[in-house]
C-alpha cells in the first residue's frame, strides 16, 4: 500500500472521509487484502482503547473534583442575573434600606464570599483543631485579629441566636490578612464569619451566594468586608447576617 492510501485508510476509519473519497476506499477494501487487514487492526485498537478506558466514564467522581466545581468557581462563571435576583430579593425584603445597593465593590465583595466559603469548607470539618485561638481567650483573639486585619472590631456574641463562639484564626485573603470566627450550635453545626480589610472602603450591599449545600451572605462596609457562611436555608442565613451586621455596627 502506498503511504497516501495508508493515510486515507486511517481517515476512513476515523470518519473523516465522505462522498467520493469514502467510496474510493470502499473499492480499495473490496480488492485489497492488506487494506482490509489494516482497517481491522485500526478498529481492534479503537475497541481495545475504549475497553481499557471507558470504565473511567462510569467511576464515581472523586470528592476533590466535585468540590472544585462547588466551591472555587470564578464569579465570571456565574450568571449575573442570578446575583441580581438575589440582590433584588434582599432589597425587597429589607426594612428601611439597611444596606445600600451599590455596584462599586461588588467584585471585591464576591471575592470575599468565595474565600469565606473556601475557608469554611476547610476548617469547619476539623475536629481537633477547628480554631487557632479558642473562645476561652476571646479578648486576646479579638485584639490579635483586629490588629492583623487593621481595624478594631468586636467579636459578636451570637448566643441568643443559638450559636456559641468556638474561636478564630488568622487567614490570608490574597495578600491581605483575614480573620475567621467559628461558632457552633447545640447540634454541632458550625457557621463561620470571615472578615478582611476593605482597602478602597468600597460599599457593597449584602448579597447571598449558594454553593452546594452552603449559603454565604457577604457585604462591604467601611474599612471591612464581611461574609458569613453555613449550611442552612437562605432565609435563616439572611436573618443571621442581619444580626451579625448590626452587632458589628455595634
Amino acid at each position, binding site marked *: 500500500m502506498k503511504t497516501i492510501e*495508508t*493515510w486515507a485508510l*486511517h*481517515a476512513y476509519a*476515523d*470518519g*473523516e472521509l465522505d462522498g467520493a473519497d469514502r467510496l474510493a476506499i470502499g473499492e480499495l477494501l473490496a480488492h485489497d487484502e492488506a487494506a482490509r487487514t489494516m482497517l481491522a*487492526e*485500526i478498529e481492534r*485498537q*479503537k475497541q*481495545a*482503547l*475504549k*475497553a*481499557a*478506558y*471507558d*470504565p*473511567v*466514564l*462510569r*467511576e*464515581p*467522581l*472523586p470528592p*476533590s*473534583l466535585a468540590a*472544585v*466545581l462547588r466551591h*472555587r*468557581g*470564578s464569579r*465570571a*462563571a*456565574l*450568571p449575573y442575573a442570578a446575583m441580581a435576583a438575589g440582590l433584588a430579593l434582599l432589597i425587597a425584603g429589607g426594612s428601611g434600606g439597611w444596606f445600600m445597593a451599590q455596584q462599586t465593590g461588588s467584585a471585591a465583595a464576591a471575592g470575599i464570599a468565595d474565600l469565606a466559603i473556601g475557608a469554611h469548607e476547610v476548617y469547619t470539618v476539623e475536629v481537633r483543631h477547628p480554631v487557632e485561638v479558642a473562645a476561652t481567650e476571646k479578648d486576646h483573639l479579638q485584639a490579635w485579629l483586629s490588629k492583623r486585619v487593621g481595624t478594631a472590631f468586636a467579636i459578636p456574641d451570637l448566643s441568643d441566636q443559638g450559636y456559641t463562639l468556638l474561636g478564630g484564626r488568622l487567614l490570608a485573603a490574597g495578600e491581605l490578612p483575614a480573620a475567621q470566627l467559628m461558632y457552633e450550635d447545640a447540634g454541632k453545626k458550625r457557621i463561620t464569619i470571615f472578615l478582611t480589610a476593605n482597602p478602597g472602603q468600597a460599599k457593597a450591599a449584602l448579597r447571598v451566594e449558594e454553593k452546594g449545600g452552603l449559603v454565604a451572605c457577604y457585604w462591604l462596609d467601611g474599612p471591612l468586608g464581611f461574609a458569613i457562611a453555613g449550611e442552612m436555608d437562605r432565609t435563616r442565613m439572611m436573618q443571621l447576617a442581619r444580626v451579625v451586621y448590626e452587632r458589628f455596627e455595634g
Partner: protein
Amino acid sequence: MDFRSQLAAELPHLRRFSRALVGDAALADDLVQDCLERAMLKSHLYDPARPLRAWLYAVLRNLFISGLRRDRRSAVVKTVDDLTGGEGSVAANQEERLSVALIAEALDRLPHDQREVIVLVALEDMSYRDAAEITGVPIGTVMSRLSRARAALQRILEDRGHTVLRRVK
C-alpha cells in the same frame, strides 16, 4: 445551563482523556482538577461557538505539557494498580485487568506526541481538525503522528501479547 454545570457534564470525558494521556490515576485526576480551575479562571477565553470538550482537552493537554517540562527529572513509579486505575477500576476479571494494563503500558511506551494524538482520535473520537487545534499542529502532522502511533501500538501490543501468553503458559 451555566458554565459550571457545563463543566460538570464534561467531567467524565475529561477524566477518561486525562487517564489515557497521563497513565497514573491520581496524577490524572490532579490534572483534571487543575484543568477545571484554569477553565473557570479563563472562561472568558472560551468561544461558545466551539465545542466545550475540545477546549477543555486543549486546556488540560497544555497544563500537562507544561508540567512535563517542569518535572522532567522526576520519574513516577507505576504499578499495575496505577495503570489499571487501581481500586476505582471497574475491570472485573483477571483477564480484563491484564488487557487494560497492556494497553496502558503500550500507551506509556509511545512518544508523547504520538500518544496524545491516538488518544484524542481513537479513544475520544475527536476530528482531525479538533486534534490539530488541541495539539497546536497542522492536520497533516496529526495524520502522520496517528499513522506512526498506530503502527507502534500494534508492534508493542504484539510483542507484549506474546510475552504475556508465554508467562501464562
